């Protein structure tokens, strides 16, 4: 009945009605724009991703890895999660690309071409762990709103660029500077040119760190288009949303940056713990800074069946936001006992660390191998999903895999 009504309506109208644009957004639909309904892109080809990646959303594009795809020490593009708040830029002209440093607290507003950035400032390469603030959101109860990431919205690639600090100092930082905010070329979902899809930032202390860079290379090559080519801000250890892609500007602010996704409840958690499902006033929400301690078993893939009497070699990565992971353990009895894993030091600050262990099972049967990391301040991963928050951020609960001994 409903459908027939719609068909009747549609016969009187145009294609705009067919794809359902008319009621709310028809007036804003640009001429010649092909609505999503009529496109058939293959994201795996388009972004050169592993076929085991999972598409969470296609407008905007959001895609996550599975734990076993993240086994490499340095994450290759094929396994890197994709997170977008807006639509990807449509035209990228590297020869005309510029970065403008402005804001209330800049001494001299300055614009640099890519070539100028690359020739004027010293290059640095760091392996940086970038995790989406909402990684693990799917486990919150009551369910939290947003893309339902499981475990795969994290990666650690090798990034090359110039220090943000060097560039900001070249333009000049006033004494009253407290925050930076980035600007980028991606489009607001509504295609409103007056709105930014995302414009987040960080306090000056983070902006001035050695490892906070304006990157133009990833894993030794041009940054893949979907990960921010030709210029990306990299702020390792913080929610990945601070690492702005397709970077066109940095504002040095004399107050906390108030760009898109800095306000409301985006990338914020209750300053004081609340009960699951409780409502929180905006003024009682605090901006997420460093991500919490976490780890992932990347080998074997969950579901491994082994023969009784054989040991299982497991491995994975652990990270702790601004901190280092101090200790790594695993359990095969749901946390009754924990055994130590071998943990390596990070290659550089903010890079994830690799762990391994030889696991023995006392008898045949079903097991789960749980992994638990503890940071240098003694904070460990919880086995249960941690404090509920409205947007489902910061789930750093232990990762586990299923194993059968036959």
């Amino acid at each position: 009945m409903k459908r027939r009504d719609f068909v009747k309506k549609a016969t009187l109208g145009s294609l705009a009605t067919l794809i359902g644009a008319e009621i709310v957004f028809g007036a804003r639909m640009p001429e010649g724009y092909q609505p999503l309904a009529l496109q058939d892109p293959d994201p795996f080809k388009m972004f050169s991703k592993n076929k085991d990646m999972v598409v969470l959303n296609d407008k905007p594009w959001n895609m996550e890895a599975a734990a076993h795809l993240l086994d490499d020490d340095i994450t290759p593009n094929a396994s890197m999660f994709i997170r977008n708040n807006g639509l990807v830029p449509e035209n990228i002209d590297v020869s005309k690309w510029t970065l403008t440093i402005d804001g209330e607290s800049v001494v001299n507003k300055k614009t640099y071409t890519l070539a100028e950035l690359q020739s004027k400032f010293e290059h640095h390469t760091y392996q940086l762990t970038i995790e989406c603030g909402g990684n693990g959101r799917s486990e919150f109860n009551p369910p939290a709103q947003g893309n339902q990431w499981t475990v795969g919205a994290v990666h650690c690639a090798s990034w090359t660029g110039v220090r943000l600090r060097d560039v900001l100092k070249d333009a000049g930082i006033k004494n009253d500077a407290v925050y930076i905010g980035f600007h980028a070329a991606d489009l607001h979902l509504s295609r409103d040119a007056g709105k930014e899809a995302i414009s987040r930032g960080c306090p000056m202390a983070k902006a001035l760190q050695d490892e906070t860079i304006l990157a133009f290379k990833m894993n030794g090559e041009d940054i893949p288009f979907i990960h921010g080519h030709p210029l990306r801000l990299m702020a390792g250890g913080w929610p990945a949303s601070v690492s702005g892609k397709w970077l066109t500007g940095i504002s040095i602010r004399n107050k906390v940056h108030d760009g898109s996704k800095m306000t409301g409840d985006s990338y914020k958690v209750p300053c004081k713990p609340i009960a699951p499902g409780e409502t929180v006033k905006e003024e009682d929400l605090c901006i997420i800074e460093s991500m919490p301690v976490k780890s992932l078993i990347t080998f074997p893939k969950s579901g491994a069946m082994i023969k009784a009497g054989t040991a299982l070699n497991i491995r994975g990565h652990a990270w702790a936001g601004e901190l280092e992971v101090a200790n790594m353990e695993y359990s095969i009895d749901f946390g009754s006992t924990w055994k130590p894993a071998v943990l390596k030091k990070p290659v550089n600050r903010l890079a994830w660390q690799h762990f391994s262990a030889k696991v023995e099972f006392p008898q045949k049967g079903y097991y789960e191998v749980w992994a638990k990391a503890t940071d240098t301040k003694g904070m460990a991963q919880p086995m249960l999903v941690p404090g509920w928050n409205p947007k489902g951020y910061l789930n750093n609960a232990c990762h586990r895999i299923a194993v059968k001994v036959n």
Partner: protein
Amino acid sequence: MAKKEDFPNLITKIYNLMLLVISLVILAGGALVYYAIDPDFSVFQLPSAPIAATETVNEVDELNKIENGIHVRTGLVDAEGLMTVVNNCTYCHSAKIILQNRMNTDRWNATIKWMQETQNLGDLGSNQEVIVNYLVTNYPPKMIGRREILTNIDWYELKTNNN
């Protein structure tokens, strides 16, 4: 006398008849030529509405096909309010973000408010209730506790097992 007068009249009558026949032949010929070009005589019909309507219906049928109770193009459940949701909610973003979420009435309304404040969504009027009812009816929150058991485990024989 009468016959003398009749003769020119007859000529006139025959002449008029001939004119009529010739005109008819020309008209019929013209019609035949036109028929060859446009067999449907579409020029004499009202603006092509019926044809366009047929095509549009087919496109709509294809675009809004329902299979096994699912609206194929979006993956949304075929239930009351489906097309209101499709028409209002899948222009800016994909239906995939709807399918991923489970919220109650208050939180869906709060999410719509957020979209109006930050994402250029307009006033939904009476559609808002239809949309939210559809969502809470077909995609209600699932209670999953503090930690779920592992499900959908893809079991496989692990052969190489060396670090």
